[in-house]
């Protein structure tokens, strides 16, 4: 029994890691959503070739030999891009043994690289994929230090090779959470932050922190004797202070957002992205003028703490109206809820006095906009020709509560939507036992 089981699972692993075939596919008769903010196109076609989008829209010809999927009555969209999230870092978030979200007992923070910790076979990846999420930026959202380390951009394909880009950004906590871990106050956050950047700048000046992974540079230069940062942490921050690696700054309070923007005065090369930004609407003009993009938590409307007193669901709409480049992300729960959040922003456009997004912009806020903010707008996030063949077919308006996912393709490869949940559903559609116990139904 046992050897056979082993063989079977080895075969399953092989199947998972085998290079997947991207065939020519034409999805026809669908309502097509390009994802760039434009309105949905009825009766459209999407053609994929070599794992990439060849064409999408109305009047697109179906190439000879392409597998055709008739999507009458259905919608076709780019895969959802969720930035930022923590999927892949745990199997069950509340089960500590399975959770790699924080490393506050270790000596490193900025040097942490999340990519080796990501488990592509975690059920959260499979469930998110079945919810239409195809790409994500995985960030240390629950870091125990002000620097959470370096996040990764991943795809959610079932091939077991999730990393699109490792060490894609550095993550830092300003505000209440940062204050607690920096020593107890926001003043400490700003001192710790500036000291760290100065040490990284000094290391860079001495020729350190170079290479694809600056932590691993051979013959690293001497550092001053009073350095606080470990060598690894300092090296990891060199790409940040020199503008080669974006800095994702989580901040909520209007004053904290201003202080984040002010960092640019001291460290002009910083390439910042603001995360959360619950009170962003109060400083929307300054955010827009700075050009710093925002990945906002979309529906916060409660004074969850004293740094979010001005929370309102109209935050995203007001920031967008002021010209801030704003995508959705960091909504603190499961990435598969992204369409519901986007749909709510549309609903606000009908509420007197509220601000939301029109449908096209709402969908873009969970596809092309976060992709562009991640610096990957030319790789995925919309159905423009040449971009990755990340496509989702839905049984209705993708932002609507009752709609669901029919098919998912990543890089043109059709993905399995089977997971722990779907297997349980199938087993318990009829809850009572049959001729044998439920354990034999699989």
């Amino acid at each position, binding site marked *: 029994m046992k050897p056979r089981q082993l063989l079977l699972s080895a075969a399953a692993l092989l199947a998972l890691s085998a290079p997947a075939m991207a065939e020519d596919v034409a999805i026809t008769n669908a309502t097509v959503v390009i994802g760039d903010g434009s309105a949905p196109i009825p009766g459209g076609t999407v053609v994929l070739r070599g794992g990439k989008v060849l064409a999408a829209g109305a009047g697109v010809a179906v190439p000879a030999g392409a597998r055709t999927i008739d999507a009458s009555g259905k919608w076709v969209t780019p895969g959802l891009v969720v930035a930022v999230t923590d999927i892949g870092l745990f199997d069950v978030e509340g089960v500590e043994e399975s959770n790699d979200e924080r490393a506050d007992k270790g000596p490193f923070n900025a040097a942490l690289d999340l990519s080796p910790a990501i488990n592509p076979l975690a059920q959260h990846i499979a469930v998110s994929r079945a919810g239409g999420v195809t790409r994500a930026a995985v960030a240390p959202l629950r870091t125990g230090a002000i620097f959470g380390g370096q996040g990764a951009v991943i795809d959610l394909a079932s091939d077991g090779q999730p990393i699109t880009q490792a060490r894609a950004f550095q993550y830092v906590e300003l505000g209440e959470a940062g204050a607690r871990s920096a020593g107890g106050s926001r003043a400490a956050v700003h001192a710790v932050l500036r000291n760290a950047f100065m040490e990284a700048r000094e290391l860079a000046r001495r020729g350190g922190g170079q290479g694809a992974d600056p932590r691993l540079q051979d013959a690293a230069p001497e550092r001053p004797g009073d350095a606080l940062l470990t060598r690894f942490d300092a090296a990891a921050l060199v790409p940040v202070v020199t503008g080669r690696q974006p800095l994702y700054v989580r901040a909520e309070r209007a004053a904290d957002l201003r202080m984040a923007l002010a960092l640019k005065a001291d460290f002009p090369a910083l390439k910042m992205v603001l995360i959360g930004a619950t009170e962003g609407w109060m400083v929307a003009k300054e955010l827009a003028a700075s050009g710093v993009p925002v990945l906002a938590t979309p529906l916060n409307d409660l004074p969850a703490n004293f740094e979010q007193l001005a929370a309102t669901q109209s935050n995203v709409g007001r920031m967008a109206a002021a010209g801030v480049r704003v995508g959705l992300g960091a909504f603190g729960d499961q990435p598969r809820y992204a369409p519901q959040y986007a749909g*709510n922003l549309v609903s606000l456009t009908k509420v007197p006095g509220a601000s939301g997004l029109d449908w096209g912009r709402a969908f873009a806020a969970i596809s092309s906009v976060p992709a562009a903010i991640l610096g990957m707008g030319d790789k995925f996030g919309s159905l423009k020709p040449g971009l990755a063949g990340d496509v989702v077919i839905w049984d209705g308006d993708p932002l609507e509560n009752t709609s669901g996912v029919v098919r998912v393709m990543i890089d043109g490869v059709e993905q399995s939507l089977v997971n722990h949940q779907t297997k349980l559903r199938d087993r318990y559609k009829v809850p009572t036992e049959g001729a044998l116990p439920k354990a034999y139904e699989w």
Partner: protein
Amino acid sequence: MRATKLLAGMAALALVASPGLAEKKKKEETVSPAAKAAREFNKNPYPSTYKPYPGEPTALVGATVFDGAGGRIDNGTVLFADGKVVAIGGADLAVPANYRRIGAAGKFVTPGIIDIHSHLGDYPTPSVQAHSDGNEATAPTTPDVWAEHSVWPQDPGFSRALANGGVTALQILPGSANLVGGRSVTLKNVYSRTIQGMKFPGAPYGLKMACGENPKRVYGGKGRMPSTRMGNLAVNRATWIKASEYRAKRNAGKLETRDLAMESMAGVLDGEILIQNHCYRADEMALVLDMAKEFGYKVTAFHHATEAYKIGDLLKAAGTCSAIWADWWGFKMESYDAIPENAGILQKAGACVVIHSDDENGIQRLNQEAAKAQGDARRAGIEVPDAEVIRWLTLNPATAMGINQQTGSLEQGKMADVVLWNGNPLSVYSRPDKVWVDGALLFDAADPKRRPVSDFELGQVGEGDVK
């Protein structure tokens, strides 16, 4: 029926606790003051002072009406006056001359949304440590604590639940750290200076119990019982044994001192207090149902019940509701087998479904959560009509909270707790347009002054904002 009896019982303020008291009274001179207090106490010492606010006779005309009891009327009319539903019907229902007529073509009307599981007020925002009043996590059973003694009536969350969620009544529960967490309180979602001013008149008490990971983690972590699931059951059973003995003594008129904890437990055995039982796993729910038989009480509802779909037949037979999320999953070990078809499979089994929030954000979108569950059910081949889905948020929670005679559906004579939605409430694109509680207009999207602002938010950034 049972609920009516309960409510009648609650309405009489000073109740005699013991049927044997009449005989006892003959030798009253020998009874100590403590014993007298134990045998004859006021079951409602913090009574509701809620009074409906004034409203005008109102007619909602031309809407799609979901009545909360599974009924649907297209192009319908809803009449309410003096705080009560007067009539609902089709286009032929005449609107009396003195009614304010609101054209509602293209809009939808439902009863007020009811959340059976909320911690507004006992875990209010801002969520600072000083506001953490939901778990008396100092002993594994605390049936003596009452949530109403923790609820802060200035929680900003009440306003969001009203304006964005159309919530007009809600049950505030103690947390789930304890096996027996204490009494719940049911509120009207109407701000008041006092908690008594929010209490739903005549609502029975609930008693919060909890299975599984939380109690054993909290107390195991303190090096005391329970540290295992079997410990959970042992402590529960010991508590029920004590309660049974207390009740027998009480019924024999032999109590010598008051015991707040046992008064709550005995209230359950008397059928006056409803068990609201946090429990995730199917196997544990089945054990709790047997424990309820062992000691002669009823589990009114399992809360969270992420594996209820595995035992819909058992839950139906027990007459126990499942108060569930649409699709929360995988955040703790005992939620790993949650599936989004939970509601659909339960509904198909004929078991009672309630969609709950347990969350200050989720309470603003119970309608959306129900719709998600409906969509997932449909894809699994289970069709649940819209009007039936609305029941998951209205009459079903009202029934499981013992307030279904007063609210939960648009039935003549019931409280005029009414939501006018600007579209189908099961659509993500719809929001409450107006909300009435007991016929009083307490939220109007078109009127910024009909938007409650709690004391906490006064004079701070965002005061009176659209939220």
